[in-house]
């Protein structure tokens, strides 16, 4: 069984959902009835509406990211891409040297590796 505190909290959430326009049909009618009967519930719904307007207004305000945050991420990406390319290049160079050494020492059997 729900405690009185839990019931009050549930009511708080239901009126919040109503103020946010998220209740429909019977649920919405029940809350409307409560708001109609109790001025304090009406005031609660109005407070929710006011809060939601404030949140939306703040959410719509443009926010610019600090240049340092943007620049840092891009620099990191360039460095990591360069390292990746360097790794590929050094790897390929190393393989070429090994191939050349193998060829020079005559270690490759005829017919091995194709032509």
């Amino acid at each position, binding site marked *: 069984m729900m405690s009185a505190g839990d019931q009050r909290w549930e009511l708080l959430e239901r009126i919040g959902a109503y103020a946010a326009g998220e209740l429909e049909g019977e649920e919405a009618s029940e809350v409307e009835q409560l708001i109609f009967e109790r001025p304090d519930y009406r005031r*609660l719904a109005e407070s929710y509406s*006011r809060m939601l307007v404030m949140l939306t207004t703040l959410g719509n305000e443009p926010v610019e990211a600090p240049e340092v945050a943007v620049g840092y991420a891009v620099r990191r990406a360039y460095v990591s891409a360069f390292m990746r390319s360097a790794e590929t290049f050094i790897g390929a160079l190393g393989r070429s040297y090994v191939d050349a050494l193998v060829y020079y020492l005559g270690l490759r059997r005829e017919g091995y590796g194709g032509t």
Partner: protein
Amino acid sequence: MSSAQDQAIRASRGDVEAFRHLVQEHSGLVYRVALRILGVQDAQDASQEVWIRVWKNIENFRGDSAFSTWLYRITVNTCLSVRRKESRRKEREYDAEYLPFLSEPRGGDADPEAAALSAGQREEIQAALGHVRAEHRAALVLRHMEGLSYAEIAHIMDVPDGTAKGWVSRGRAAMLVALSGGDLASRGTRGTAR
């Protein structure tokens, strides 16, 4: 295919220039969400961390969902991991003899000037958000500040739709309680979520 989607796919193939475009176009979104979830102190570091994670994981981006949804997911996860050490807040603890009310703006709700937020109100909202449990706060920010649907929030936060709805609902109630804290405190109650 949208240009962001196209750039993300190019970036996933290692195109740093495409990644740079993505950062420039979406840095506002990332910083804004981090700012609302974490506050100004941690938002910058978190934004940097988000973009580092994006670059590390972009090769896994296949374009199945919108790039912005994928980016929201990384942003929210990064912000929540920053807050992982934060103690679980007890939102439901308030003296419910008094309902949480917000005072009416001067000139009433219809006053167009009341629609613009003062610096003080911005600080109050940010401070009140800090009193809401991290997951609920993130869900609340996505719903009422970013304007996302419950299905999108559920996808971003990797939870069922019902959980996303519950988190927004709890966050909304905790936020109101926290915002009205000053008024309730003056009437001798604890009044806010902790």
